[in-house]
């Protein structure tokens, strides 16, 4: 019988193939993308792998060039998509700040010509923070006590909290400090003494 012959000639395995695509959609074939220039050092490792074959046949004769988009999220290419970085960053920090946990703060020191910035999340507690500040600005804070503040130094580390008040660093628990601290200032001399620091 004709039908039987046809059946035998063309097993039509595709029709019986089990796959997850919708019926009627063609199975995407993996094809190399048009091979790109050789000197794009900013390209990602996976891009370079794909373009190794130098195959320009992404436009085949029948014009159907299906490409399987990479299942894993691609690392980003510089400057793509062409959205100014200001716009890109407007919506990301809200998400990623919690993940990356970066809290950059300005630190000023009385008498120093310019300010510095530090990432609070890098430190696990006050001792680390104070040590880093001491190294950064080349001074020493002296000894902290709850009653007397910082003893033995003409400097006092202070911070501005959410309400705009200047507080002495060290009074509140570390986690509370991180969430309420907006900027740091290392006060010097008589002002510092007012915060309970006795020389």
């Amino acid at each position, binding site marked *: 019988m004709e039908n039987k012959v046809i059946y035998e000639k063309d097993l039509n395995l595709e029709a019986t193939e089990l796959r997850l695509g919708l019926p009627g959609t063609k199975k995407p074939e993996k094809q190399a993308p048009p091979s790109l220039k050789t000197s794009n050092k900013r390209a990602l490792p996976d891009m370079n792998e794909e373009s190794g074959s130098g195959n320009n046949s992404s436009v085949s004769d029948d014009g159907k060039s299906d490409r399987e*988009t990479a299942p894993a*999220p691609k690392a980003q290419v510089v400057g793509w998509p062409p959205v100014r970085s200001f716009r890109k960053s407007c919506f990301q920090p809200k998400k990623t700040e919690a993940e990356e946990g970066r809290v950059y703060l300005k630190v000023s020191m009385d008498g120093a010509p310019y300010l510095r910035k530090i990432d609070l999340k890098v430190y696990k507690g006050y001792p680390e923070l104070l040590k880093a500040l001491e190294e950064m600005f080349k001074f020493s804070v002296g000894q902290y006590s709850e009653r007397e503040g910082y003893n033995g130094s003409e400097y006092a580390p202070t911070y501005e909290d959410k309400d705009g008040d200047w507080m002495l660093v060290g009074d509140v628990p570390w986690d509370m400090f991180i969430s309420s601290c907006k900027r740091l200032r290392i006060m010097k001399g008589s002002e510092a003494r007012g915060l309970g620091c006795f020389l």
Partner: protein
Amino acid sequence: MSEDRNEMPEPEVDTRRREIAGVLTGEFQSPSPDQVLENVLENVLLFLTSRRDRNAVSLVCKSWYRAEALTRSDLFIGNCYAVSPRRAIERFRRVRSVVLKGKPRFADFNLMPPNWGAYFTPWVTAMATSYPWLEKVYLKRMFVTDRDLELLAQSFPAFKELVLVCCDGFGTSGLAGIASKCRQLRVLDLIEDEVADDEVDWISCFPESGTCLESLIFDCIECPINFEALERLVARSPSLRKLRLNRYVSIGQLYRLMIRAPQLTHLGSGSFSSSDIVAQGDQEPDYISAFAACRSLVCLSGFREIIPDYLPAIYPVCANLTSLNFSYANINTEQLKSVICHCHKLQIFWVLDSVCDEGLQAVAATCKELRELRVFPIDAREDSEGPVSEVGLQAISEGCRKLQSILYFCQRMTNAAVIAMSKNCSDLVVFRLCIMGRHRPDHITGEPMDEGFGAIVMNCKKLTRLAISGLLTDKAFSYIGKYGKLVRTLSVAFAGDSDMGLKYVLEGCPKLQKLEIRDSPFGDAALRSGLHHYYNMRFLWMSSCRLSRQGCEEIARAMPGLVVEVIRNENEEDKDGFEILYMYRSLERPRIDAPEFVTIL
């Protein structure tokens, strides 16, 4: 009448001297017919404002060239390196307003290493002595320092307008100088600049006795401002019509400003959220009334950290709005619908794709007057979700027939929708489609996007600006070359198969002025095919393509009027390798302010 003035030294000066001398001694000599004609011409040319018309006038003959040069008051320089300050000033002596553009656009996307150039300093230094009556300066993508601003503020007593777009290099201390010294200042517009926080209260620096401010735009400034000083400033600026606040101004503060300035026509609403948590029972200001009182408001933007609950406050102004910028407002479909249904007069609309296709359908249903649409991605990555698609584009094309300009970011697109837009929106002048996944085909047919873009160039007869994306073969470029006869600006990324693509464009598009290409397989042969045209272009940018240094050197040799820059990635160790070719016509010798990673061939 051809005139050769070479025989007569400085005729106009001599004639004027004679006239004056004649008047003084009583022997008035009538001016020569040539002089009369030149005087008449100057008076007529005063009315000619279009720079293209003026350029044509200046080519008629020498006397027309001179008359035009004397009467041009608006100087436009599209590439600050195409001409030197000295040359510009020598030709045009009576300039009141200057437009200067610097870096190429792809520098916005971190493709160019910093410190490439485009310094304002040599310009402001030269103008300070030569243009004492300068009133307006407009800079785009220039590097401007605080000292430049200080010099500007000191040198021009009649200075009225400063507009800085996508500039950097200055901070709030430079602004303080402008505010305090430019007593006639009407316009201070800072748009998408990077402004350093020098911790200077520049808002307080404006004259205490009242200002002539008409426009104050500072929404790009990423540091707090002195709000009380701003409130007082608004109160003593009766001419203020445009005010765009940065995100450090809360909605409560916005309210206080609005009730002081109900005459505003353009408002940038700041953060549009409250800085504190408002407890139940707290008295919130009547935001709706404040908006209702602004009867002249036609342009609304801001919403930088919007709390959508506050959105109903703007309902009273929606019916009058011609421009609405929601591109920083993270709102969903329903929230957009509640606003857009009132915006019948809207002509310009910028929005985030968080509103989804359905939001765009709502726009299409109401905004029949829409001329410009921009849809930005809230998640600007290649593999993000992509809440808008061909569905939104199709809807817009059907509802907004008067559309002239579109910028559309998406993850999925079809040729059919693009073709539909080409047919429905025949007035399109600007078509920029960015399919964020590189090399993405039509997601329904699997075909390249050639036919869609082909239809755009074919059907949109007024098209001057085009940006293409998605999977594209040389065929797309052949369409552009064949039909894109008015195209002036073309942006290409990750497209094409071979040199033919670029050849089609360079040979087919006579009006092409700005061509920016990245990551496409075009090589030296393609570059050569544009030799006949490069002097007509403002610039060509090609990065991460298939060019070789020899190929670029060939061009540089063949075209002495071009400056050919090859720019290395800063980490690049191979001194011959380069990332970027940036070339432009110039009347000058190559610039001397280029950094080390730039080689001028």
